């Protein structure tokens, strides 16, 4: 079987890439387009470390064939990171020390982005529910939930101390 040229829109830029039949979007994003934040995790949809946004919805990109993403808007962690500085969710993760090894962090942040987009003021239970498909081995989740809660507050203009 031979590859096929597809057009993908990643972080606002349309690119052409040769993809193999059934090649996962994760593999194309990381290995062909250089979006290194999209981690290679379990490759079975069980860990969430490859989470990206497809038309604003968080999906595990290891389970989506790249061809199926043609015509969608794909957003990776690189796409939400400003040229200068960090996005509010990224800042909150840093300030609340919401990572140790960092492997789950890009997927966690993309899941949080999608949550805060559709629900700008989530409860703690809603945050826990949203990230329940993203596995973290190090933090015990509490610092991650704290960070997403704080990001929601700062994005809604109720930052706790402005520090």
């Amino acid at each position, binding site marked *: 079987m031979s590859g096929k040229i597809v057009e993908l829109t990643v972080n606002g830029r349309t690119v052409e890439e040769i993809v193999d039949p059934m090649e996962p979007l994760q593999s194309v994003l990381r290995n062909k387009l250089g979006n290194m934040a999209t981690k290679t*995790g*379990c490759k*079975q*949809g*069980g*860990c969430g470390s490859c989470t990206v946004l497809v038309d604003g919805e968080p999906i595990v990109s290891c389970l989506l064939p790249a061809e199926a993403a043609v015509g969608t808007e794909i957003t990776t962690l690189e796409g939400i990171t400003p040229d200068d500085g960090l996005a509010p969710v990224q800042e909150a993760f840093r300030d609340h*020390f919401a*990572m*140790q*090894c*960092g*492997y789950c962090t890009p997927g966690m942040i993309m899941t949080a982005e999608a949550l805060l987009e559709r629900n700008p003021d989530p409860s703690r*239970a809603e*945050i*826990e*529910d949203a*990230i*329940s498909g993203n*596995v973290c*081995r*190090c*933090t*015990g*989740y*509490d*610092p*991650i*939930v704290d960070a997403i809660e704080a990001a929601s507050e700062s994005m809604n203009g109720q930052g706790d101390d402005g520090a």
Partner: protein
Amino acid sequence: MSKRRGTGLATVNYPTGMNLGGDPTQALIHSTTTGNFVVTLSSTDLGQGLKTAMAQIAADAMGVPVDNIIVDTGDTDTGPHCMGTFASRGTHRAGNAVIDAADEARDVLMEVAAEELEAAPSDLEPDGDGNIHVLGAPDRSISVMDAAMAAHFEQGRTISGRGIGFKPKSDVDPETGEMDPDSTEAHATVVTEVEVDTETGEVDVLTVKAVYEIGQMVNPALVDGQIIGGAWMGMAHALYETTDPYYPDIDHKPGSFGEYSLPGPSEVPDIEYEVLEIPSQTGPYGVKGIGEMSATPPIPAIVNAIKDAIGVQITEIPVTPEVVLRALEDEKESSEEPPVAENRDGGDEP
């Protein structure tokens, strides 16, 4: 349905480092041309924050800002030797090695600065902000960067240091059995509250309250990360995790993250803790290890709380709902046996 609550306690005496056949970790420090100091280690940061802790220790020992420290743990093939980040030994061993290396490098830095300032090395002091001053003459100073440049391009010197954190081999005394197996010991007491559903066998950990006695903290935020993450991991070991769960057929064991049983974010209990800093005699600045011990005492504390809740001592982990229900069933059967056995088959019980 009946939910029963219980409280359990566990206390741990946890070794930092091992005896092995002599247990070394080496560190090398050298300055770049611009006065940054590269700390080369083979001790690996798995996310516990070892690089951060080593940068802090190196900055303190060199007398330079932490921003001027670069920790390179790149390659265990070519780097100085480290036995590994295990036995909660990383900060203890590598920290001692870094201080040892920094002592040597700092002496060279002071000699270089002394030549530039036309002063005696013993009269110099770094201010921790990137400058070296002549004691008693505040206007006579040189930046660390200028000293490094002078070393490289004028004096032809290498500002560097070699260090080791070492525990010699300790043999067992054949007469008494005595030996010295570790470098220091940290301590903790953990109390947990659980709720056991006697209908479904499910155990919910409500709270984890702990006191950790861990020597001098290098970085409280890293300690917090270890304790919170460790409490969750201890709960995971106590109630969920096993690579070989009981199944009729071994082929049914989990093969992926989706099948491996782990507690998620909504199962995290309320965690509260206190840290007591009682310096060790052997660690850098009195450090003891906190790594592994954060995940171990929650396990017996949870199993003891289950005993308090349902009156049965469970002796295996993970305590899955099936384990709870079987334990309750066994308990019920043994308590239903009549005191006099002569009317029953197999009546040879006491």
